[in-house]
């Protein structure tokens, strides 16, 4: 296990270096990097400062080293528009994103568990078909469109829920529901198919022969084992969640990291977009690492396969 964690940790670090290189190259590929770092209000002095900061008179590897060193000090640069450290702006918006992301995750996970198991146990029944239909819609309809139509129906037409903002719990309902609509199909299908595999196995037959009530067989014996396979995709789910945050936060004017980066993109506030991208990419890799370790812990076979 120790070796496995060490190897995966090393891979994560290499991946982080890869991403920072990608961003570094992109910035320089666009021509003069100072063009990206200055706004209409920047003075000659500002530009000279940026040049010094980026070490533009030095060689490429040296410039990369300067870039990495500042990242190491948690210095993601300064917003061109707000003239504040990017890390501070992320810090302010992150709790909102977590609130939205976690609630959506919990809502869709609970629904996916219940619906996935019910669909698997009543195969080809009306619930199963309903679940499939929902999955087809969830995979085809664009998230921003569903969100806007939800605003039209629930905020404009029925006047039940606020269309935007983040002042009260009611503001959370629409974003969480639309986000869950997109997280749900994938999770549900995974749990359903993994459940079908498990229900076919010998130990479930044994549990039934032992005379355990069907409720215990399904929700305890089968479900526990059926949850291992979907765990591998948790990392991918996290990436989906982030894409969802960017889009849903923008539609509902939810003051999270996603909206921060989109607004910065519109204003061509490069340091903010760069900072958010680097931070979130690091977060994604970290989550993937944790998921892998967890998975290796749950299923010992994995530890040896990936060596």
């Amino acid at each position: 296990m120790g070796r496995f964690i060490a190897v995966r940790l090393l891979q994560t670090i290499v991946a982080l270096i890869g991403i920072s290189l990608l961003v570094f190259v992109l910035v320089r590929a666009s021509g003069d990097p100072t063009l990206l770092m200055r706004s209409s209000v920047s003075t000659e002095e500002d530009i000279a400062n940026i040049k010094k900061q980026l070490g533009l008179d030095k060689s490429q590897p040296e410039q990369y080293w300067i870039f990495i060193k500042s990242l190491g000090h948690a210095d993601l640069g300064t917003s061109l528009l707000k003239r504040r450290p990017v890390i501070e702006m992320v810090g302010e918006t992150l709790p909102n994103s977590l609130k939205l992301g976690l609630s959506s995750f919990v809502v869709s996970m609970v629904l996916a568990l219940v619906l996935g198991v019910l669909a698997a146990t009543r195969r080809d029944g009306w619930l199963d078909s309903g679940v499939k239909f929902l999955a087809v819609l969830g995979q085809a309809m664009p998230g921003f469109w569903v969100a806007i139509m939800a605003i039209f129906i629930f905020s404009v037409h029925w006047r039940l829920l606020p269309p935007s903002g983040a002042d009260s719990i009611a503001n959370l309902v629409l974003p969480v529901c639309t986000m869950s609509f997109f997280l749900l199909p994938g999770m549900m299908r995974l749990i359903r198919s993994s459940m079908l595999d498990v229900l076919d196995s010998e130990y479930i037959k044994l549990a039934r022969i032992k005379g355990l009530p069907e409720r215990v067989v399904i929700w305890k014996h089968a479900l526990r084992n059926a949850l291992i396979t979907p765990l591998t995709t948790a990392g991918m789910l996290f990436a989906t969640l982030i894409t969802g945050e960017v889009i849903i936060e923008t539609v509902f004017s939810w003051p999270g990291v996603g909206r921060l980066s989109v607004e910065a993109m519109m204003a061509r506030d490069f340091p903010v977009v760069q900072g958010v991208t680097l931070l979130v990419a690091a977060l994604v890799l970290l989550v993937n690492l944790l998921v892998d370790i967890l998975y290796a812990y749950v299923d010992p076979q994995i530890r040896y396969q990936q060596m």
Partner: protein
Amino acid sequence: MTENTSEKAPRRKPVTLEWSFVIPVVVLALLVFSAIFAPFIAPYSPTKISLPQRLLPPFFAEGGSTAHLLGTDSLGRDILSRVFYGARISLSVSLLVIFITAGVGTIVGIVAGYLGGRIDSLLMRTTDVSLAIPGILIALLLAVALGPSFKTVVLAMSILGWAPYARLIRGETLKLREADFVAQARIIGCSPMRIMIVHVFPNVINPLIVIATMSVGLVILFEAALSYLGAGIPPPTPSWGSMVSDGRNLIDRAWWISFFPGLAIGLVVMSGNFLGDWIRDKLDPRLRRL
């Protein structure tokens, strides 16, 4: 003579229409048709601004007329015409992106799978990282760094999009590497390059076609999301995503601005997904696990 043949001839397999194939193909054919012939079928220019005609509802709604079947937007532009023209962006971006990502992914996959060793680990680690990073953030970054344009969108979608292809094709190549005909080719002295191109590549075409079709929907959704966020092809070029975005703040007065382009995206993506499933079941049902 003729009266008997009908009885004696073996009964032909009845031609059944497979709706799961016909409907998506028809929708996608309509997409291609409207993309190519947009200038002929669109009743108006997609960028013609006409303020007196602004915010007209579609023909079936109260106050709508058949002059603008799907209504007009806040600048008085005809929505139906813009939906036709929007098909061009969706189609051209997605075809180009699929072509690039499938090409790069196949090369990476075959090279990694066939050569193995360090090259394999290096390429596969890169693939893993590319799979993990949310593409939308890289796309936003590129939109700022390079400025939104057709090229930027294609680059943003391709820069990570090759990874799923690489992973799948590598898996297929690993199996082929052990196959007898590849071993024989090695024995008679074929170079690795020749084996990869002549012997491995033709055998990965089926799975390649399957995942390329299955990714049509994803690519169209991604492009739409980018134009919705303002990181796509800049206005006034009509693209479905930015049309939906135009209607966001008018949703309390003019729902049709957002509704129709979004519906077009949904229909096309759904057709792409159904067609992908159908082709997978025909060509390579093993891939159902994907």
